[in-house]
């Protein structure tokens, strides 16, 4: 096996994503114009998406003689890559006003984000644990930096939340990575397999506890990425401290990466009990705590914790729930992106998410943004007009009931009721009457508006034609 034929076409998404990152760096070096860097990166993300779609499903590459591969192009992976690319583009657009004001160095920002996207793409396509973990780290590591990347204009008060957020994120992340690696090590010690397709092979009887604990630890370590309870405490603090676009990326792309990794693992290993416990804890705690939040981003953070719980519920089914979980994640990230986009659009450039009270009457001042937020929140609550969210919830519940996990479906739905309580609170604040006297409506920066329009279009499209997504994932 000294050398092997590598199917470079199949690797196109990886090349394009990594190329985007490098190109961003180079553009920054040689052109040194923020707009150019941004444009190049956004184009790169589009190219990545296009590449993923053109590759589609293929036979894998980097294969062992036993015909298990490290790079497995499948349609779900392609969909995930497209999502990563789209989310990256969206977050870049959200960041554009801040970058224009020089709140973060544009070149590095774009490069790091593109690196993170590359990691995400790798997670989707990876066929073995090593690639998976390396991809996941590539997804996460640039984010440590991005969370803390905040430049203050002269005279502007310096806020330390972003630094705190970065420390929190980093420390919890490395501990979780260590746990995940321990899990992978135990699994390897028990079965000798690192390729995903071989993970499912039964371990020798003596090693079964080893394999079981290994699988559980692997799941727990990866669950950090989706902020599952009890590995969630970093999420609200980090989201709130990070710049809002980065928080958006954390709660969408980073979470999607975690879901992909988890899906890869749980579909091969029997971890139903652990995942189910995580799911119940995650959605319940997430929703209950979200009820009491007064800060916008923290509320979204807790809600995204809860949403992860729904995804985990589907993953508790193992391979049978993967499609539902991925579908849910896909619907979720689009809606979450819209919600964060509205926050970005309504807040002053570079400001944090603020209190919910700061948004009173915003929906009446900005009807379009209000409508977008209603769409997003309704979708997150799983109600029309957020049809995408409705189908997301439906797919999870359908999978759970189909596999006779009705009790878990019940917990999911009970939580959906709790969740609606805080979503309507936010929505009601947007439309409170009388409209409090606030600053005159600011015009929304064009990139932000474009990204929002795009995201809303995708959400509406998925709402009316969810079959597109389901076909892509199965």
């Amino acid at each position, binding site marked *: 096996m000294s050398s092997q034929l590598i199917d470079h076409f199949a690797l196109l998404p990886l090349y394009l994503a990594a190329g985007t990152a490098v190109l961003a760096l180079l553009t920054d070096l040689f052109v040194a114009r923020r707009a150019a860097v941004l444009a190049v990166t956004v184009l790169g993300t589009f190219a990545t998406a296009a590449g993923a779609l053109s590759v589609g499903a293929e036979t894998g590459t980097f294969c062992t003689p036993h015909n298990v591969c490290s790079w497995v192009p499948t349609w779900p992976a392609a969909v995930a890559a497209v999502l990563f690319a789209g989310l990256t583009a969206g977050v870049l657009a959200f960041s554009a006003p801040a970058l224009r004001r020089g709140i973060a160095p544009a070149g590095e920002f774009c490069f790091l984000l593109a690196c993170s996207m590359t*990691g995400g793409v790798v997670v989707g396509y990876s066929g073995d644990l090593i*690639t998976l973990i390396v*991809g996941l780290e*590539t997804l996460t590591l640039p984010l440590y*930096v991005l969370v803390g990347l905040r430049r203050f204009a002269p005279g502007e008060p*310096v806020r*330390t939340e972003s630094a705190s957020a970065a420390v929190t994120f980093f420390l919890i992340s490395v501990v979780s990575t260590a746990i995940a690696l321990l899990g992978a090590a135990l699994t390897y010690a028990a079965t000798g397999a690192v390729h995903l397709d071989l993970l499912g092979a039964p371990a020798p009887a003596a090693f079964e506890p*080893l394999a079981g604990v290994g699988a559980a630890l692997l799941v727990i370590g990866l669950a950090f990425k989706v902020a599952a309870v009890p590995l969630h405490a970093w999420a609200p603090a980090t989201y709130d401290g990070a710049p809002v676009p980065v928080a958006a990326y954390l709660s969408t792309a980073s979470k999607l990466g975690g879901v992909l990794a988890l899906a890869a693992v749980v579909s091969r290993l029997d971890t139903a009990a652990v995942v189910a416990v995580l799911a119940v804890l995650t959605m319940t705690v997430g929703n209950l705590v979200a009820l009491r939040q007064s800060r916008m981003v923290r509320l979204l953070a807790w809600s995204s914790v809860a949403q992860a719980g729904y995804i985990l519920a589907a993953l508790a089914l193992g391979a049978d729930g993967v499609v539902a979980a991925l579908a849910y994640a896909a619907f979720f990230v689009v809606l979450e992106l819209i919600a964060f986009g509205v926050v970005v659009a309504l807040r002053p450039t570079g400001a944090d998410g603020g209190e919910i009270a700061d948004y009173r009457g915003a929906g009446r001042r900005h009807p379009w943004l209000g409508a977008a937020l209603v769409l997003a929140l309704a979708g997150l609550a799983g109600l029309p007009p957020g049809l995408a969210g409705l189908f997301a919830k439906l797919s999870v519940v359908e999978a759970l009931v189909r596999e006779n996990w009705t009790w878990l479906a019940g917990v999911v739905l009970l939580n959906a009721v709790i969740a609606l309580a805080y979503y309507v609170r936010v929505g009601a604040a947007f439309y409170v009457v009388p409209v409090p006297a606030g600053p005159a409506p600011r015009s929304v920066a064009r990139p932000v508006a474009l990204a929002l329009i795009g995201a809303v279009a995708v959400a509406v499209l998925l709402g009316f034609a969810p079959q597109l997504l389901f076909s892509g994932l199965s």
Partner: protein
Amino acid sequence: MTVADVLLLALGAVAVGSGALVVTSTHLVRSGLYLVVSLGAIAGLYLVLGAELVAWVQVLVYVGAVVVLLLFAVMLTRAPIGPSADLDRPALPAAVIGAGVGVGLTALFVDAFRWVRYPSPEPGTAERLGEQIFGAWVLPFEVLSILLLSALVGAIVLSRPDIGARKAEGA
């Protein structure tokens, strides 16, 4: 008990002992030095276990780079060189969970592997490992390069004086 076993036991004892000192020492710098010892002992264990290349990489990367980095960081944060009293938090949760993890994992391994002899492996030379890395594992290797690049850029960008600078310091 073979020679290998004895070596394993001895090196393991050193690794664990100095590891314990890493997490208990009241000297910041000494902790770093104990870490060197511990990691070195682990490199020795790799040698005994036949992973030659890993052992050398361990020595180079860890002992040579990581620990040095950590010590630099200690200096940069103007930490006291001498013993300091406020390094630790309340011990109870840490002790309980640490003990739990230790006992649990040990029990798991002992239960799984018992006192069974395994044949000593042939030494994993650099050549063999290299063949593997550049054969089956090119992909993560490539990805790792992106990771390293981003770590590099990230560390640099975070160290730029205008990131999160305090006005009072005047950069």
